[in-house]
């Protein structure tokens, strides 16, 4: 057993760090439920002196930002952007990853190397030419345009991860399936995919959060177009237009965070795995 003062020091440090880490988010959450005058005249921590007095809290801020400030629309846009931007790249990547893992064709290793090598490209390298093409084709400011862009950016990592997962599945399984006359499609659809559920889940969660939380890609390809702007773009716009209206800004920020937090709290295991696996993505 360690000495008592040492244990005390250990707990003191860890508990203080945890509190410091949680405090900013708690402050945001508390402020988002306080009326305008209260937020602007006293610190959010003062609510704790009479916390059970529920009259000091209000839902008015949320009602205002969801309706008058258009956050409900932005939430819908975020969903419309994020769901296809998660499903499309994973489907496309799974097909390619299966070919890389279980099919024979010339230059297989070389092509896979190129795909993995594309992870190096920072997306900044692609913004200008793609935007120019998008402007010509009328894809700027459209959902299809941003779905495809997120697909392109997500593919190298998704192919890399799924190829490795597919390739690690037992070879005998595929051999006997082929012997029984299964087509490649059957082997892909009935064997590779169902056996890779954990990898697919982690990948899906990572891609979902990456797109949901993305600001740069949306700023570039959706521009300032109000009716397609996702939450992150909308929120940054509000930072400039609402200035010191902290009661509204905090509520708006919490709306953008709500879904990722739910994912985090319910699917933490997959979430952590997905984030860790995806950490090297460009």
């Amino acid at each position, binding site marked *: 057993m360690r000495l008592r003062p040492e244990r005390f020091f*250990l*707990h003191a440090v*860890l508990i203080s*760090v*945890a509190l410091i*880490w*949680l*405090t*900013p*988010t708690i*402050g*945001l959450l508390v*402020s988002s439920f306080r009326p305008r005058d209260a937020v*602007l*005249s*006293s*610190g959010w*921590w003062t609510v704790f002196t009479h916390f059970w007095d529920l009259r000091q809290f209000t839902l008015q801020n949320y009602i205002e930002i969801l309706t008058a400030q258009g956050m409900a629309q932005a939430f819908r846009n975020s969903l419309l952007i994020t769901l296809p931007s998660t499903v499309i790249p994973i489907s*496309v990547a799974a*097909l*390619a990853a299966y*070919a890389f893992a*279980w*099919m*024979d*064709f010339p230059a297989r290793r070389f*092509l896979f190397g190129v*795909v*993995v090598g594309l*992870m*190096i490209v*920072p997306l*900044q*390298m*692609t913004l*200008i*030419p*793609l935007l*120019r093409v998008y402007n010509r084709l009328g894809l700027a400011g459209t959902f299809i345009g941003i779905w495809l*862009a997120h697909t*392109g950016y997500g*593919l190298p990592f998704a192919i890399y991860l799924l190829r490795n997962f597919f390739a690690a599945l037992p070879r005998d399984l595929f051999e006997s399936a*082929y012997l029984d006359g299964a087509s490649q499609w059957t082997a*892909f659809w009935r064997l590779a995919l169902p056996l890779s559920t954990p990898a697919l889940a982690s990948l899906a969660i990572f891609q979902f959060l990456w797109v949901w*939380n993305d*600001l*740069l890609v949306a700023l*570039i390809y959706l521009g300032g177009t109000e009716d397609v702007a996702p939450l992150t773009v909308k*929120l*940054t716009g509000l*930072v400039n237009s609402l200035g010191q209206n902290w009661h509204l800004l905090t509520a708006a*920020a919490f709306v*953008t965070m709500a879904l*990722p937090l739910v*994912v*985090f709290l319910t699917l*933490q295991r997959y979430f*952590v795995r997905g984030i*860790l696996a995806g950490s*090297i993505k460009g």
Partner: protein
Amino acid sequence: MRWQKSWLPWLYLSPALLILAAYLVYPTVETLRLSFYDARGETFIGLENYRWVFTARPMRIAFRNNLLWIVVFTSTTVSLGLVLAVMADRVRYESLFKSAVFLPMAISFAGAGVIWLFMYAYRPPQAPQIGLLNAILVNVFHTKPVAWLTNRHINNFSLIAVGVWIWTGFNLVILSAAYKGIPRELLEAARVDGASEWQIFWRIILPLMKPTLAVVTTTMIINVLKVFDIVYVMTNGNYDTEVIANRMYKEMFHFRNFGRASAIAVILLLAILPVMLINMSRFLENEER
């Protein structure tokens, strides 16, 4: 592998290869080309954009700040992550603790930016401070409030602190997993031999965790080179807080100078390249094992 139609693999590959060619390969080549052209991408101007990148004042500030981010952000997140991983391993509420520190990873950088704009909120000395940090300064330490985001001596550190808040949990989780991979008998044996906890940390834990520390460090450096959202949301690079990626966005969207923006992107790629190669060679090593 059994006999198959020779075109079948290409059927599976073609959607991916087409999209990769259109969204990564073509734009990369085109950006490289544009970096030698004028603002509208029409006239060849040689290395002029690169001369600008390395001499213009806003770029010098951006380079300086990215360097500051690399040093301060990387060393803080990695060392804090390591120390907390080792400490958290000794308590029963470890997973709860890790969740608390990891939580900001779920939030968008834009959301984190708003959270910290509020933490840093500044009011003149007479007014009640509604930002927590200034309230502590004024009410607990009885000093003047600090303009965290506009004071040029500290604002870069204020922004870096937000990055640290977001990313420390990531390092903590990875390093904690690596720490748990160290055989307990090794540490116990050292303790039996009379080594102090301090010696064990420096002589055993640290050397054994070197590979993971390298991965985490390179990942942090790549993040920092591309840092954009935090700066864009909180200061937009004003008051000498500019960074490379934010400057590129400005050149592209506000000044419509595609030549300069492309040159910045190329420099960013060149800066990321060596770090990324180190990281990738490690992946390949893992694969061969």
